């Protein structure tokens, strides 16, 4: 274990400085901003609304559609070409699966709920930030929810398990594992789990515990900003 002090001075089990706001996009039915460190995500929810073409419709319940996109100037490296990539497609797909178990769309047959996630500025953890913003936006839109979702990345940097990796930690000169996790905040069930890198079974237990801790912290913020919006009577 050689990674004993984090590059940005945080505790091993500490998220970056976080900020969130509900209702940031006037045209949307629900919207939110979520920031962790230098990663910023916007999410807008439109719907439930009519779904075309009709073969996509489900007569039993509404469907959820998720779109994930990095703005062309958002990345630390070169310009990101607009129009989506294999990466953004996959992230949109796993994000949908992360959010769906929290929703109850049974009242909206043949309809769609659209979630659009946009990242103006990125420093790792974008899918987690997107999920956190989207969960707030879905609640802001008044979509019936059975539970809530929050997400964080847990990593293993040169032998040490840490919470909420930055880009510099992902690029650390030594073995790095990056494990984004999303959980239902009430039941604790896992709705997103991915990994790049190598860990052992004992680490995995620790990783899930640390993820749960981060998710609890994030969920407190999600609830706080929703209360702020609706208690102030906006």
């Amino acid at each position, binding site marked *: 274990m050689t990674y004993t002090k984090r590059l940005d001075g945080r505790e091993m089990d500490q998220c970056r400085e976080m900020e969130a706001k509900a209702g940031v*996009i*006037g*045209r*949307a039915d629900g*919207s939110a901003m979520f920031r962790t460190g*230098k990663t*910023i995500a*916007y*999410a*807008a929810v*439109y719907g439930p*609304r009519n779904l075309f073409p009709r073969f996509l419709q489900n007569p039993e319940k509404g469907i959820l559609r998720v*779109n994930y*996109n990095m*703005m*062309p*100037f*958002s*990345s*630390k*490296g*070169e*310009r990101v070409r*607009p*129009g*989506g990539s294999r990466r953004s497609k996959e992230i949109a797909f796993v994000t949908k699966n992360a959010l769906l178990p929290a929703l109850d769309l049974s009242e909206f047959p043949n309809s769609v709920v*659209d979630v*659009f*996630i*946009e990242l*103006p*500025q*990125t*420093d790792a953890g974008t899918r987690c930030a997107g999920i956190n913003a989207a969960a707030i936006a879905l609640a802001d839109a008044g979509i019936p929810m059975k539970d809530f979702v929050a997400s964080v990345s847990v990593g293993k940097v040169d032998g040490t398990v840490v919470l909420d990796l930055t880009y510099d930690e992902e690029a650390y000169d030594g073995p790095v594992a990056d494990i984004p996790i999303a959980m239902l905040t009430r039941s604790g069930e896992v709705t997103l789990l991915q990994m790049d890198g190598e860990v052992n079974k004992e680490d995995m237990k620790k990783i899930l515990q640390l993820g749960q801790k981060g998710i609890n912290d994030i969920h407190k913020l999600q609830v706080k900003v929703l209360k702020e919006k609706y208690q102030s009577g906006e």
Partner: protein
Amino acid sequence: MNKELKQHLILALDKQVRYDGRKDKLAYRDIKVKTGISVNAEGSAEVTLGKTRVYAGVKMAIEEPFPDKPDNGMLMVGAELLPLSNPNFESGPPGIWATEIARVVDRGIRESGLIDLPTLCLEPGKKVWAVLIDIVTINDEGNLLDAAALAVYAALQNTVFPKFDGETVEYGVKTDKKLPLNDKKPIAVTVYKVANHFFVDPNTDEEKAYDARLTVVTSDDNTICAMQKGGETPLTQKEVEDMVGIAMDKGKELRKLV
């Protein structure tokens, strides 16, 4: 087009009142310009026009120049009407409105000679700096084009070169060298016409009900550097002159913000 909406709009304008309560046909909503809104971009800015919100970001890259301009830097403007910003926008390749916004903004910058493109040449025919500008919409409550042009100008003012060692660009490291800009400040003002009224800065409803529009990009020395007529209704020559006059006056006002 919604006939009743249009009738209502005209009746209000007859009384010098706007659809959203503004008392002046030629008044913009509250405008705010904020630069440096995305740290990984070489330059960036946000413009809010009332509730309309637009981002512009600049990335710099080293590229091979176009064969017909071997000793000029390159300029590219793209616009994305994000489906996040308006229920009617869809994912996919840019439609005609996005393309029009990008091209009109591009012309204003290019034709005013705002960016000194020859100084962006490093090795004629081989290596030049490319200035890659992207416009994205966060919330569309009308007048995206004027907001986009202003955001792009503010983002360019905010742009610095990344570190370049002759081989690769080190994107994480910003220099303090600014983009070479002249002092022309190209500003786009779109003047709308409905019935016998001219107005500027439409909101969502007003944008659904106009007859014709004319975007005029003016630069600091009172020259026009780009124009674009929109809408299906023709304009008389006198109307064009009047609309250009309005655009120049409003351009002066907006220019003070950047």
